[in-house]
């Protein structure tokens, strides 16, 4: 199964990357872009039959390794 993991910084956490990109976009004329937040997208190939089980395992992996719970939120989608 293909599983998509979306990892984003928690709302109040500073995102220096996003801010730097926004500034450069403004300079390049994309003034309509008022905010940028940068996160990670992971695409996993997971062996397994049951969607719910696969989801639960990947969520566990997120908590254990893939995401940093102190600054990041994650979301798992089984495709």
């Amino acid at each position, binding site marked *: 199964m293909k599983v998509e993991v979306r990892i984003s910084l928690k709302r109040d956490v500073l995102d*220096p*990357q996003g801010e*730097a*990109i926004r500034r*450069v976009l403004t*300079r*390049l004329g994309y003034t309509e872009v008022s905010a940028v937040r940068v996160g990670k997208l992971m695409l996993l190939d997971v062996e397994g039959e049951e969607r719910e089980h696969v989801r639960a395992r990947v969520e566990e992996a997120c908590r254990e390794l893939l995401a940093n719970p102190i600054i990041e939120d994650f979301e798992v989608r089984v495709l």
Partner: protein
Amino acid sequence: MTWRRPKIGVVRFPGSNRDADAMRAVELCGGEAVPVWHESEDLLGVTGVLIPGGFSYGDYLRAGAMAAHSPVMKAVRKHAEAGGPVLGICNGLQILLEAGLLPGAMLPNRSLRFIHKEVFLRVERDDTPLLGKLRCGQVLRLPIAHKEGNWFAPPEVFQEVERQRLIALRYCSAEGEVAEAYNPNGALAAVAGLTNREGNVLGMMPHPECRVDPFLGEPFGKPFIAALVEVS
């Protein structure tokens, strides 16, 4: 007779951090270093360009990506297209890649970590002005200091790179042997430096600018900076 020192523009981006080092190196090699601000639309009459190392824009998108879109890079491109010499070091090479002035792209180091290390380099070309002070097969020793130096090119691009002999430097052993064991970052074909087809643009990951003053170590970096000054 008056000796006029060639003017070398050292481009400064927000986040450049080896700009002052590059300027000193240029001066040591007899050039006049002229700082050129990233917002500048012209090159202030310089005859050669050095794009120094550092973390332009923090390398927060891809290394060199945001700097490649600075106003000054339009001027650098024009200068290069007119045959003017350009040397990009570390972040400078990354910027030249992102600006399309040299082929390929940089990926994060295989180890995913920043690496500072003395490496050996084998010279692959000596028939262009910027490499003219070196000999093919010569082995140099210089430090690398980067997190994204894993050069990559898709097969069709790589074929062209090989066909046109654009590889200028490769990582190697002290004896000059090129093998995976001596490749610090996973770069395709152990590429450490590249030139363009015309030979007037050279980009390299290792840092020649901190090995010009013999006081700081054997001056393996001098031929690069001196060549830039001489042909400018």
